[in-house]
């Protein structure tokens, strides 16, 4: 299944969880800070920026997370294995040309950008960035895709 994407964000929604999929849209170095040190990944415009909310909740924090990374190049922080803070992460993010969802990893503890933690209802999907947008392996029944547009405006007073 192919979906066109420019500046929009695709919401892949299940009953209890969701994914947000966006294009990186520019080339930049993404630093991944993990217990062993720092690794920097060259991001391409066609790469995907994917947020997963395995426990559901509002989409706005996920959108903010996408924009912090793709527009402001915020480094990614990876927790050590078995870190107690893992359970407090409501939204996790991965960036790369191809990202697989997996329900058998712990949130925020994997530096590998080709996998992202998800609820089991969205587990096993492969999302691939394309020139026009992104492609996904077939979605399970009951899962739908909607396109979102969001902008953050600040007014000084």
């Amino acid at each position: 299944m192919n979906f066109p994407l420019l500046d929009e964000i695709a919401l892949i929604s299940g009953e209890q969880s969701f994914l947000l999929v966006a294009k990186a849209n520019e080339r930049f170095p993404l630093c991944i800070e993990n217990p062993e040190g720092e690794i920097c990944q060259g991001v391409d415009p066609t790469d995907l920026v994917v947020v997963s909310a395995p426990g559901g909740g509002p989409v706005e924090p996920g959108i903010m997370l996408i924009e912090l990374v793709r527009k402001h190049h915020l480094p990614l922080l990876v927790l050590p294995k078995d870190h107690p803070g893992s359970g407090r992460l409501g939204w996790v993010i991965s960036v790369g040309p191809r990202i697989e969802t997996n329900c058998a990893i712990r949130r925020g503890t994997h530096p590998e950008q080709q996998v992202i933690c998800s609820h089991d209802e969205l587990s096993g999907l492969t999302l691939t960035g394309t020139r026009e947008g992104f492609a996904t392996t077939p979605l399970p029944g009951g899962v739908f895709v909607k396109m979102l547009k969001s902008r953050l405006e600040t007014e000084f007073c």
Partner: protein
Amino acid sequence: MCTVGGPVDIDLPPERVKGKDYRCNECGERFKGIGKKPMCPSCQSEDVKEI
């Protein structure tokens, strides 16, 4: 569902995120990079060399 607090956590091959050592030819920054087209994290130059 996601294994927060549970006993399961798959292990991925560690070499997938080991990275290679690079030096930036423009600013001299040394860094570990992954991916096909590494970029300098300090000056964003693509003129980097594996060391």
